[in-house]
């Protein structure tokens, strides 16, 4: 089997880290900014970044329809953080004009864990990934508020990690702790995480995705 070709949506965000992680686990990784580049990939990663910006650029550079079509045809897609928001059927606390792809049947709350002073690192167990919890990095991260039929929850984290009072500021917009929050999901060939495995050097999640792409293509 030749290495699958996996694109990283390269309109804005931490594209380089995803390309490096994909290359490290044996995929042929390349940036995707144009419809023709999308045609050439077996799988797609939507990176971390600013989801409102990415959503706008997807429309301006005419990638929405082609990506929706590929997803409908079974293209494996992995989204981290902003990428998770782009894959959500419904987004809370987003901009009114913000739109995701026809992706995972879930409701995602944007910046749900709070502002940057609330960004955190924590271990997260992921169903289907062996070798202990992933060290997950959450940056102004979203969480999954609800999932629909056919969506498998792969990982959760304890809500509202305690920041030092001096650091948390008055703007702790996240609701009061209610136990665990969903931060990793999969529906068919679509995978999404609230956190950024591409920032840690832990390649297991990218390996999981590349295997998924290999199985489909």
């Amino acid at each position, binding site marked *: 089997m030749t290495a699958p070709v996996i694109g990283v949506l*390269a*309109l*804005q*965000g*931490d*594209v*380089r*880290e995803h390309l*490096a*992680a994909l290359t*490290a686990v044996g995929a042929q990784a390349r940036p995707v*900014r144009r419809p023709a580049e999308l045609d050439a990939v077996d799988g797609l990663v939507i990176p*971390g*970044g*600013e989801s*409102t*910006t990415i959503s*706008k*650029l997807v429309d*301006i*550079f005419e990638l929405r329809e082609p990506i929706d079509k590929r997803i409908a045809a079974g293209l494996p897609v992995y989204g981290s*953080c*902003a990428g998770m928001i782009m894959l959500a059927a419904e987004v809370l*606390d*987003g*901009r009114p004009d913000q739109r995701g792809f026809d992706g995972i049947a879930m409701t995602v709350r*944007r*910046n749900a864990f709070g*502002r*940057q*002073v*609330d*960004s*955190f*690192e*924590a*271990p997260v167990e992921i169903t289907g990934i062996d070798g*202990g919890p992933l*060290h997950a*990095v*959450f*940056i*102004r991260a979203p969480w999954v508020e609800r999932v629909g039929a056919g969506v498998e929850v792969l990982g959760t*984290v*304890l809500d509202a*990690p*305690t*920041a*030092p009072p*001096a*650091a948390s*500021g*008055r*703007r702790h917009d996240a609701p009061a702790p209610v136990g665990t929050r969903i931060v990793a999901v999969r529906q068919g060939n679509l995978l999404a995480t609230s956190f*950024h495995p*591409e*920032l*840690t*050097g*832990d390649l297991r999640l990218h390996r999981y995705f590349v295997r998924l792409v290999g199985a489909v293509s």
Partner: protein
Amino acid sequence: MSETTSPNASDTTPVVGSARVKRGMAEMLKGGVIMDVVTPEQAKIAEDAGAVAVMALERVPADIRAQGGVSRMSDPDMIDGIIDAVSIPVMAKARIGHFVEAQILQALGVDYVDESEVLTPADYANHIDKWAFTVPFVCGATNLGEALRRITEGAAMIRSKGEAGTGDVSNATTHMRKIRQEIRRLQTLPTDELYVAAKELQAPYELVKEVAEAGKLPVVLFTAGGIATPADAAMMMQLGAEGVFVGSGIFKSGNPAQRAAAIVKATTFHDDPDVLAKVSRGLGEAMVGINVDDIPVPHRLADRGW
């Protein structure tokens, strides 16, 4: 990707304010445009145009330059107003060395503090100890040594300095080229010469070695100062910037909304002249601008910081 799993990987306690979380925030801004705004209305225009973040400040550099006087951190009410107006990250400026302004900005919940030479410095010897904060910092630099000293103090993001408030991009190109050139030079040096390089750069050897091996800074490198057109932004990206700060260039122009959107598109397709030609059309008047050469040396902002 050079980082390995951190020592606290097995710890179950969530960690806030770590270097990875601070630097990671800047990684998410890459390929994007951060716009100076002075009102909630401008912040909305910036967000509508596709800005990845806004920089809240009281006066854009062009006005600071025109009006003179001591320039300080903005009024918290004004920063609150901007935080409430947009959903994208909000940055704000503190004076160089003014750690209390930074404490206030952190308490307000801003997402990044810019320890900025555009404001009047509060301390001519020391910069802020940025490790002491949960909020991350971005700092300006005219050369590699300055960038590495800021990183040593805890900066989680660097922007090459230009001459802010001029609309003249020449200083931004000089400083971006300088930083990139000095990094390339480090890559060619044998180990024993790296010790001397560290001495010359007035930066810690470990950090110099890391840059020599990686061929890049350990934090994200943006550009700033004098960027006024989509072509300016694209040129800075082609010179190696990972994203763009635009100050006076947008809201001192004839049609801010359209120019802001054009600069966003130009930053994404910085290497595609066909797209750049398309987005550069019909933008109306650019900011009038001042030649950096016409500014007396004591009034040049990029020279602040050391």
